[in-house]
């Protein structure tokens, strides 16, 4: 989540910088054009030919390097569970439907890890986490994601996403998480 936000902010910052450069250029333009013409050459014409061979190359959507990204960065999102449960609710099913479309396109190997909140015993939570990961894998497989591309594991209560001893933290920690194997 955090990493995604950072990435988003970074992209936004980049966009703003590009815009600033662009507007800056046009301003320079104006500055250059405003003074009375000492020479015949118009700067506006000199500038256009040099730019943009690189800029046109980047927005190629088909060239996403999935392996270099975390699944959340290309839109595959974690799903959450009720207390002591490993069945998928409507929200989880909806999330997984979107996840499945992206994963099929990405075609990468993915690790689904099951997690639990801190309540309960270490061993039972490891088993519960595994059930959660398995429920997600099985549903994704039913939607056409190749089973051979999905690994599962369970960390039980050992790898909480949010620290805290309240329902808010617990709800965040009861999840199946997508990561690169």
């Amino acid at each position, binding site marked *: 989540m955090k990493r995604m936000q950072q990435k988003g902010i970074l992209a936004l910052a980049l966009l703003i910088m590009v815009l600033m450069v662009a507007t800056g250029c046009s301003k320079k333009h104006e500055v250059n054009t405003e003074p009375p013409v000492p020479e015949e050459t118009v700067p506006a014409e000199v500038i256009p030919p040099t730019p943009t061979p690189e800029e046109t190359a980047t927005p190629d959507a088909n060239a996403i390097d999935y392996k270099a990204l975390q699944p959340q960065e290309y839109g595959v999102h974690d799903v959450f569970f009720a207390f002591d449960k490993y069945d998928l609710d409507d929200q989880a099913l909806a999330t997984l439907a979107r996840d499945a479309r992206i994963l099929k396109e990405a075609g990468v190997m993915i690790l689904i890890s099951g997690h639990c909140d801190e309540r309960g015993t270490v061993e039972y939570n*490891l088993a519960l986490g595994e059930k959660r990961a398995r429920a997600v894998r099985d549903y994704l497989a039913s939607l056409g994601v190749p089973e051979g591309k999905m690994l*599962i594991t369970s960390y039980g209560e050992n790898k909480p996403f949010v620290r805290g001893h309240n329902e808010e933290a617990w709800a965040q920690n009861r999840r199946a998480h997508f990561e690169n194997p």
Partner: protein
Amino acid sequence: MNRLLHTYLCLVLVSVCAVCVAPPAVRGQGSEVVIVDTRSAFRKTDILLNEFDVLSGGRKAVAGADLVASVLANDLLLSGLCRTGAGDAPADSFDFQYTIEGRVEGPLMDARTSGEESPLTVSLDLLTYPGRQLLLGKRYRPERDQQRIMAHHFANEVLAMVTGQQGICLTRIAFSRGTGDRRDLYVVDYDGEGLLRVTANRTLNLCPAWSPDNGEIAFTSYHHGQQGLYSLDTATGKVRRIIAQAGLNLGADWRPDGRELLVSLSETGNPEIYRIDPLGKVIKRLTVSRAIEISPSWSPGGGELVFTSDRTGTPQLYIIDKDGSGRRRLTFEGRYNDSGVWSPRGDRLAYATRIRNLTRLVLIKPTGEDRRIVTDVSWGNCEDPSWAPDARHLVFASDRTGVFKLYVYDVVEESFRQLTYGDDPDITPAWSH
């Protein structure tokens, strides 16, 4: 680390045994005070622990004598079977039947020229009191780092002689320490000393289980995110893989003869209980259901096992025969029961139950009778009990201070002591044999 673990196992070779005299009449006297496991018949043996004589060797010998005496006194107290004349009790409340005397001789002078420090010589005697009849005489030559072990060794001998019971003074507790997915296995002496880290693989290491001869510790670890069951050789420190099927490879428990382990595996799509051999070959699958089946623990004779199943919708304890037949439900109270472990004496089990969001420690008879909640709410969450071989002490993890640390519970006296300290959580303890 390897060397230290090894030292432990080789202690008997280091000690030089001298005399051991035990007249039958005195043995009889000893058996009179064997503690029966009901509190009404509970009585302790008083042993007068005299200050040791330091015959030579200066400061090092004095320090050695003090260390050995304090470890020995603590061992006798922690056994729950003896008093040593120290502590809060008034002097006239003791009824000494035995006394321990010690003599310590310092390093030999010629050791200085050879560049090595020769060990102390420690002679320890157990005598009747006041008759001063020699029951047990031992002479040890411990290296500096063996003085503690030596004292534990003698304490076990004294307990066996005086109470007829096998002491736990040389036992240790393995556990998992750390946070998140970085938890290492550690081993600590039963008295909280001698802490030692035994894994360093930058992943999650959990649920240690000692083989019956303490030669191996089976544990669950992760390799590239995948769970597997591994085994640490306690003499060499080498780790081998026992089994790493897809899914869970969890909850190992060695059969008392060491030839098999119980484990829960989920390759078939669901955690089930299996018997495997120590090389990882599946001998028999014991459960078939769509529920979670985990936490298996052998009965002392290896004829039955207890495990957790949530086949009714909530995790409960069940007992089955070693071939998987004869299933019966052990727990009916509470909606969350797990981590059943059979006492080495077989007369009861400990497990964890959840009551209003807190996990509490419980004792119960194998018949399901005499259910007794051990930890009140002030103990916070209490998890993963493991029995000492004396069937009297239990180690478990509690987060009463805000972080999970290990505590020891004395089933007879209903008393607690803290075993581990520090900021990192300590979980899944296992008492050695």
